[in-house]
């Protein structure tokens, strides 16, 4: 199917009244939770997973995708007005956005962020259209070895990029892979680690695990934090940026779109890293870098564009290879799996309505977001009056009832509770739930393909390295490990934080404090504070702390 036909079909799916309604609900929920500190896209999507059983597969992805990119818009609002990033990718926006607000330019900051996000999101959709079909064609040739390589590469990159402590993340990924083996063995039918519990025979339910780790774990973690009501001081006026603002930020928006797109495609990339990279790039390119951190509009436009572009392009590996590049996409992947949709290179051919429908809905969703954000910023800000405690109480009840509704089984409620405790403990001890969930989702694919490869190659382990494609991927993996180990050692020697991108953040962050916020789960380094700690209290779950 050509692009024109595909898009035609896509729009006929996306313009279906039900789907229009759900893309609207999605971007609205996304914006709202982006505004509300403490409930990020990961937690929200996890909490809403049971709902996807009730919906058509394409509708559920449209809804969840809307929440994801909608939250990128919403997170901006609190970053600019309160210096509180509603979600991790907006951390960078606090640097210059909040300064602009202090200078009475909150309006243009929000306006340019909305426009930039729209452009970035839209260009990324175009990129997705162009890049996805050829990639899927290539992927059809993949054998079991390639899938093992790709899946392992995905997990590895998520554990290495954007987490503060790769070994801890790898440990969690291993735990996730192990938990995925619970239940009946797909090949021999043997029950594994079920301890004769009938409920465990089908394995742990992905929805329950994700809801526990991200939803309940997050809520429990936030309970310990003292929340205080925030006051909006800056008045918002003149949302639409001036012609000069547009001129100043047009380059940043263009570069941010491209950068965000490519970083979003990479496993482990995603919003935080894209926005950081864009900020760093703009600062380096600027004639007068000292303006950054004091209200430079490029410092808002570039990163906001980039994080939206990346949240769209992250769909490329999912829809073409069946590999979710970050945790939010892993949840969406899970939603498709529980709907019985095989996600992989064949998706474009077997379920064109999903592929093209989701793409078309992104155009519509981005347009809606632009229309929602420009006039309604004032309304969204009022949401901050909702107290976190009330939100937590209702979110918990939704979780409990929601997970029950999946299988009508009380056992799943206990699973949620146990994983909630686990998720909370992990946050307390600096282990990130992101790699665990990603590995849990990919565990079955990895195991099946590993065993298949072993069977077909008669137990020859080198089958992974001698095939050109899988060999290349494993070669890349070795490169990533060597590179990051060497860099880690060099950083430790020079006494700098041992995480990727920590440098850039250190360099990028002005002296303002950047509070922690809910991350996509993979992006632990996001909210490293730039030095002091006497800013506003941390916004959300802070898996994203780092020592100064």
């Amino acid at each position: 199917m050509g692009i024109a036909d595909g898009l035609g079909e896509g729009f006929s799916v996306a313009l279906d009244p039900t789907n229009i309604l759900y893309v609207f609900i999605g971007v609205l929920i996304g914006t709202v939770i982006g505004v509300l500190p403490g409930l990020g896209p990961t937690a929200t999507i996890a909490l809403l997973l049971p709902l996807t059983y009730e919906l058509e597969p394409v509708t559920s992805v449209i809804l969840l995708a809307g929440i994801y990119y909608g939250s990128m818009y919403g997170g901006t609002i609190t970053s600019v007005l309160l210096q509180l990033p509603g979600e991790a990718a907006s951390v960078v926006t606090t640097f210059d956005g909040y300064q602009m607000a202090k200078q009475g330019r909150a309006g243009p900051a929000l306006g340019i962020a909305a426009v930039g996000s729209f452009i970035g999101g839209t260009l990324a959709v175009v990129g997705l259209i162009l890049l996805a079909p050829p990639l899927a064609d290539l992927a059809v040739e993949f054998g079991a070895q390639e899938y093992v390589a790709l899946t392992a590469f995905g997990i590895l990159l998520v554990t290495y990029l954007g987490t503060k402590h790769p070994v801890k993340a790898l440990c969690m990924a291993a735990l996730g892979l192990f938990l995925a083996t619970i239940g009946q063995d797909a090949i021999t039918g043997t029950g594994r680690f079920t301890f004769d519990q009938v409920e465990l025979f089908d394995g742990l339910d992905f929805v329950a695990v994700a809801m526990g780790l991200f939803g309940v774990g997050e809520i429990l973690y936030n309970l310990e934090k003292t929340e205080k009501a925030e006051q909006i001081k800056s008045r918002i006026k003149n949302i639409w940026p001036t012609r000069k603002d547009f001129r100043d930020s047009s380059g940043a928006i263009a570069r941010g779109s491209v950068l965000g797109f490519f970083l979003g495609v990479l496993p482990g990339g995603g919003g935080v890293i894209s926005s950081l990279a864009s900020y760093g790039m703009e600062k380096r390119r600027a004639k007068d870098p000292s303006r950054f951190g004091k209200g430079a509009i490029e410092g808002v436009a570039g990163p906001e564009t980039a994080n939206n572009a990346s949240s769209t392009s992250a769909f490329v590996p999912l829809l073409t290879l069946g590999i979710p590049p970050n945790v939010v996409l892993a949840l969406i992947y899970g939603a498709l799996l529980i709907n019985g949709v095989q996600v992989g290179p064949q998706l474009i051919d077997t379920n064109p309505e999903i592929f093209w429908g989701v793409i078309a809905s992104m155009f519509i969703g981005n347009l809606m977001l632009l229309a929602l954000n420009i006039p309604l910023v004032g309304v969204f800000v009022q949401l901050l009056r909702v107290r976190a405690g009330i939100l937590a109480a209702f979110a918990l009840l939704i979780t409990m009832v929601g997970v029950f509704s999946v299988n009508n089984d009380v056992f799943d409620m206990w699973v949620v509770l146990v994983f909630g405790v686990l998720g909370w403990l992990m946050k307390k001890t600096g282990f990130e739930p992101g790699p665990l969930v990603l590995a849990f989702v990919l565990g079955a694919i990895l195991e099946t393909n590993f065993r298949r490869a072993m069977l077909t190659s008669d137990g020859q382990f080198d089958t992974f390295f001698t095939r050109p494609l899988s060999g290349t991927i494993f070669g890349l993996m070795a490169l990533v490990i060597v590179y990051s180990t060497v860099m880690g050692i060099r950083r430790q020697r020079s006494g700098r934080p041992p995480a990727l991108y920590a440098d850039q953040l250190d360099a990028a962050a002005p002296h303002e404090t950047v509070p922690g916020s809910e991350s996509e789960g993979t992006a632990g380094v996001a909210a490293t504070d730039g030095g002091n700690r006497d800013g506003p209290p941390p916004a959300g779950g802070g898996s994203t702390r780092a020592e100064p």
Partner: protein
Amino acid sequence: MSKHLYRLAPLVLLLFGIAAMLQARDLSLGELSAPGPGLWPFIVASLLSLTAFVLLFVDDPADYEPWTRGTAGIALGLLSLGIFIVLFQEIGFLIPAVLMLLVWLRLFAQEPWRWAVPLAVLGAVAFQLVFVEGLGVPFPDDIVLGG
């Protein structure tokens, strides 16, 4: 000793990993050319043990947050959720939901009674309507509704 308390987490993971390896071995590992059901779990459990072992030595104590008074509150919150699940199974949705919302709204959100009570009752009824009437989820028999 307390200085090394943070090593508890990797230690627990290490023990879990070793236990998992032993369990996996009992499932029969098979051969590489004919992997048994235990082979893959054994591999990932080994990875888990290995990384946990490394963490015993290299982990950063600053990653670990201190326990606060709030921690006791968490335990209470968890207890309330546990009781909710048990009651839900026994007497249906409405009463446990009202009780749980009350506990959370009063204790954790610190809403005054005049807000907590109506919010809890309305919330529970709304959930009942949405999930049972709207989505057709079969909740356990409810003593209030006499189902």
